[in-house]
């Protein structure tokens, strides 16, 4: 029941922002639709409602955002350089890394961060053993431990504090 209330609040916030000049008709339709959606799909999205109450998670998330945006900009300049260069300086390959994160949300966010950081893209996840298969456009090291340190070392500790 608690997870349904949280999902309803999130969906209603998105609805109000989408139809911004606040209007009673829009609000009425929004309450009806968000209530229906939260009632039907309530227990699918939010697994652990108590995690929403801890304030330190939000602070770590605020720390994570500028780091992520900076990595994103670096990735773009890197890719633009590789595309313009006449010899196409790429050395692609698929390697695997091992992560300690367990929960679904943390793994999803780790895969998204890896996809948007320089030169790497996640191809598949093995959830039981925590192994990610990564396509790397410029392979520096094929060893599993060093590759983990290079690719996921920065994000893993912060994401463990946010989502675990």
């Amino acid at each position: 029941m608690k997870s349904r209330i949280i999902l309803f609040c999130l969906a209603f916030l998105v609805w109000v922002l989408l139809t911004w000049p606040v209007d009673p008709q829009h609000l009425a339709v929004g309450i009806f639709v968000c209530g229906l959606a939260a009632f039907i799909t309530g227990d699918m999205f939010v697994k652990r409602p108590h995690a929403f109450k801890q304030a330190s998670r939000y602070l770590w998330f605020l720390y994570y955002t500028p780091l992520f945006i900076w990595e994103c900009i670096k990735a773009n300049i890197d890719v633009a350089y590789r595309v313009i260069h006449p010899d196409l300086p790429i050395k692609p390959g698929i390697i695997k890394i091992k992560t300690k994160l367990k929960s679904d949300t943390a793994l999803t966010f780790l895969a998204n961060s890896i996809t948007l950081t320089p030169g790497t893209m996640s191809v598949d996840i093995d959830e039981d053993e925590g192994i990610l298969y990564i396509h790397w456009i410029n392979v520096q090291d094929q060893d599993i431990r060093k590759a983990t340190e290079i690719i996921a070392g920065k994000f893993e500790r912060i994401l463990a504090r946010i989502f675990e």
Partner: protein
Amino acid sequence: MNETLGVIFIVIGVGFDFFGCLGLLRLPDVYNRLQAATKCVTLGTCSILFGLILYKGFGPAGIKAVLCIIFLLLTSPVAAHALARGAHKSGVKLCKGSVCDKYEEDKK
């Protein structure tokens, strides 16, 4: 002043979109194309939407642009991930100069 900054951000974003599409044309195989196109086009479009926020201020258009940025940053890596896995499972090989393919080794 804000309008000039917004137009500058929009032009930078359009430039990155162009580089992404050029990468889609030039790079040798599916995975490299997916990397270049996803990264450049996603951040380029985010930059265009940020320029729109600076240009219009926090009216209805600005708030919709913020929602668009969050939506884009959440969904576009997921789509890239799904496409890469689908391509690998449907049997697309890596291009000629590749170093290693641990996924292919582990599947057997």
